[in-house]
């Protein structure tokens, strides 16, 4: 390939160094840790804290009715909610630490937690 002719020996060194730098920064992508637990809150209080290891469904009672939460290995979602706009249901699967689905009308929230606490912009 003729483009390779423009590369001098030191250039390869810089490319390798750059690649190493990229490799070193890669862990930052997983800084929040892996999704390990699902935290279900009802009226602001923790209703259940479930390990994202097995498959199960949880029914959370609220002022409007029951919110149905599905837990699967590594992810969780709100399956059904009596709220009028269904925002939390349409959010779909949550798989990264810090992700949260809030069913405000029914006072239920589902949050994914990892080993370390991940913050989002809500903390400002």
């Amino acid at each position, binding site marked *: 390939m003729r483009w390779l002719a423009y590369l001098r020996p030191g250039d390869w060194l810089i490319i390798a160094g750059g690649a190493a730098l990229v490799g070193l920064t890669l862990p*930052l992508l997983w800084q929040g840790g892996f999704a390990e637990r699902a935290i279900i809150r009802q009226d602001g209080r923790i209703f259940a804290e479930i390990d994202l290891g097995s498959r199960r469904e949880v029914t959370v009672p609220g002022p409007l009715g029951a919110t149905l939460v599905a837990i699967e290995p590594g992810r969780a979602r709100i399956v059904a909610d009596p709220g009028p706009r269904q925002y939390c249901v349409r959010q779909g699967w949550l798989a990264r630490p810090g992700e949260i689905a809030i069913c405000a009308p029914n006072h239920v929230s589902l949050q994914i937690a990892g080993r370390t606490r991940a913050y989002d*912009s809500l903390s400002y």
Partner: protein
Amino acid sequence: MTASVTELTVTAEDRRVAWLATAAVALSLADAAIPSPLPGVKPGLANIVTLVVLIRHGWATAVWVSGLRVLAGSLLLGYFLAPAFFLALTGATFSLLTLGLARHLPGRWFGPVSLSILAAFAHIGGQLVLARLWLIPHDGVFLLTPVFAAAALVFGTINGLIAARLLGEIPAAEPVR
């Protein structure tokens, strides 16, 4: 009484800087037209001009061309004095400082590709620092560092190769200063 007339003498150097800056601005506009999956990930085509200018005409001319490009580019794209302007300015400053040091590397071993990659990393590094200190004062800014670094490596290499090719095709009009 006649108003005193200020004579501005335009030197050949001024014309050259203006032409090169124009080329850089045009590439900036092309850059902005390319859709990007993530703000901050851009090819940075205008840096090809900076590299060629640095190698052909020296660091001072490169500073002029780069500075004019940031100023004129921001005016044309409408982000003058907006956060994006300061990000562009910081990126340009960091990469120019890096280029100022890196151009002393032995040319036999390190070509335009090396300069381009080093400048690209300095560029994104400076921008991340500014973003952390000023725009988003939270360490979350650094979460996407791997993506930015990878983009810097890829686009730095490509731009460096293009600059190397241009330098090979355009014969040096005058000795390098």
